[in-house]
């Protein structure tokens, strides 16, 4: 374990010491979809006690564990629990399994292979905030699997609070917390933006705890094993394990569970390693950051180690024969089209940014200065952080692919501009 505050050194484990982590997901490709298998694997949840002391103990345990959200923003979960607890009226818990990010598969994988862990977590969270209802909002691909799990629990009378499953809207911004609330309440999957926060007044005006499904699965394990157990993996700053979607030029792309702080090379090795030399990695998601392959491959996979948020855990291995500028242009266009079109800076700024990146990719931009200014100006000026995420992505591309950008401006491209590495849903753009 690195000592506190010194996580910047690479921390690649020798091969024989490498630990395969399987806290959330069962080993290999095994499934733990049925309730019986789930109980054999994890045991029963300790019973919730409906007292203030129990709720405080649980919140403190989650705080000590250092659990943060796995939906993208890495916000401390205990803080959100406290914000909802402090409200007087009846709360609601929403398990967010929207997974609007087209390249991410980790929430769907978790809900298919270990749905009861997520539902356990939602149930405990509901007891902690004294919620009267849990809504499980899931991607349509996994609706049937989650329905089956909820039915099993209902027959077994496992949960004090009723669980209701809702199919998520299929758009990029639909997974934003207030958009989920808006979708469930009014069938409008766009962010609400204005205060009050959902923790104060969310669904039907009630205090609403929105947590990513993976966050809830970790919470279910902390409820069973405690904070010290949780912290036995990971780094002191960023304890635990996490799910990652590994994608791009890799032997066996897919979802894996890794220990936070494992070297990036080691993380890619979990997907069989790169198939070709890599020039860069996209870390975090389509709101994430491009990082150069070197030295990133030897750095610890943690927000601190990389100096970049881990977001929803996407890692794209980007090969040398693809064009980072062209790929960023495709992403920027897709994300601009996915704007909910409610806020001026997002509605006008994102298409302008996408236009400029496209022109750069085609080697005919003369407005690099404007592009750079827009990327700064747009920050914090949407009702949700969609524009900030796009700005982060494009800014990191200009940094990491600076040489390629210069080459494009001189009229040539070293990559094969037509080689697409990043998945974008067909017809996903309006």
């Amino acid at each position, binding site marked *: 374990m690195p000592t506190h505050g010194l996580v910047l050194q690479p921390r690649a484990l020798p091969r024989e010491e490498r630990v395969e982590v399987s806290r959330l997901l069962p080993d290999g490709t095994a499934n733990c979809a049925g309730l019986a298998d789930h109980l054999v694997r994890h045991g029963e949840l300790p019973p919730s006690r409906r007292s203030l002391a129990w709720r405080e103990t649980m919140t403190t345990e989650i705080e000590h564990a250092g659990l943060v959200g796995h939906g993208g923003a890495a916000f401390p979960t205990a803080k959100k629990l406290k914000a909802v607890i402090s409200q007087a009226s009846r709360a609601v818990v929403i398990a967010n399994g929207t997974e609007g990010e087209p390249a991410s598969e980790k929430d769907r994988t978790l809900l298919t292979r270990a749905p009861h862990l997520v539902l356990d977590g939602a149930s405990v969270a509901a007891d902690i905030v004294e919620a009267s209802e849990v809504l499980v909002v899931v991607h349509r691909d996994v609706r049937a699997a989650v329905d089956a799990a909820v039915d099993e629990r209902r027959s077994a009378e496992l949960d004090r609070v009723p669980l209701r499953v809702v199919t998520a809207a299929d758009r990029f911004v639909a997974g934003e917390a207030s958009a989920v609330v808006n979708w469930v309440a009014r069938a409008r999957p766009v962010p609400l933006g*204005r205060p009050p926060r959902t923790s104060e007044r969310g669904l039907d005006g009630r205090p609403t705890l929105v947590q990513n499904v993976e966050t809830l699965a970790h919470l279910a394990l902390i409820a069973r094993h405690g904070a010290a157990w949780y912290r036995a993996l990971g780094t002191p700053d960023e304890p635990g394990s996490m799910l990652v979607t590994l994608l791009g030029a890799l032997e066996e792309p897919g979802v894996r569970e890794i220990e936070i702080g494992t070297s990036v090379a080691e993380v890619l090795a979990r997907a069989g390693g790169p198939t070709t030399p890599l020039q860069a990695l996209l870390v975090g998601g389509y709101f994430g950051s491009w990082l150069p392959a070197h030295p990133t491959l030897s750095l610890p996979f943690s927000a601190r180690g990389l100096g970049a948020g881990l977001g929803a855990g996407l890692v794209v291995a980007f090969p040398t024969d693809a064009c980072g500028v062209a790929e960023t242009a495709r992403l920027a266009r897709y994300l601009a089209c996915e704007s909910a079109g409610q806020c*001026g800076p997002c509605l006008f*700024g994102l298409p*302008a940014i996408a236009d400029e990146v496209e022109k750069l990719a085609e080697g005919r931009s003369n407005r690099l200065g404007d592009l750079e200014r*827009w990327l700064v100006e747009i920050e914090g*000026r949407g009702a949700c952080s969609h524009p900030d995420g796009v700005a982060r992505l494009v800014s990191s591309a200009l940094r990491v692919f600076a040489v390629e950008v210069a080459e494009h401006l001189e009229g040539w491209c070293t990559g094969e501009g037509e080689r697409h590495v990043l998945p974008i849903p067909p017809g996903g753009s309006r």
Partner: protein
Amino acid sequence: MSSRVRIRVDRIACDGRGLCGEILPELITFDDWGFPIIKENLVPEDLDGVAHDAVELCPKLALRLEALEQECCSSKVVRTSVVATSWTPS
């Protein structure tokens, strides 16, 4: 002493007509599409009255002033409360 009032824009309601920047050029400029950029969100005391005017005059009821309640002897924001808004309650 630092200001205790912060100005914010409801980005969904705002349609970029630009009145706020004319009233409060010290705090607000515009982007290339005419939407406000808050250069400085803390309202200095001498602009307090003008800031209230801006809130009242915004045609889309998109501006809001929030009081920052501060801890004694520290500038940490503890809680905010709305001192002026034309936003309709959602």
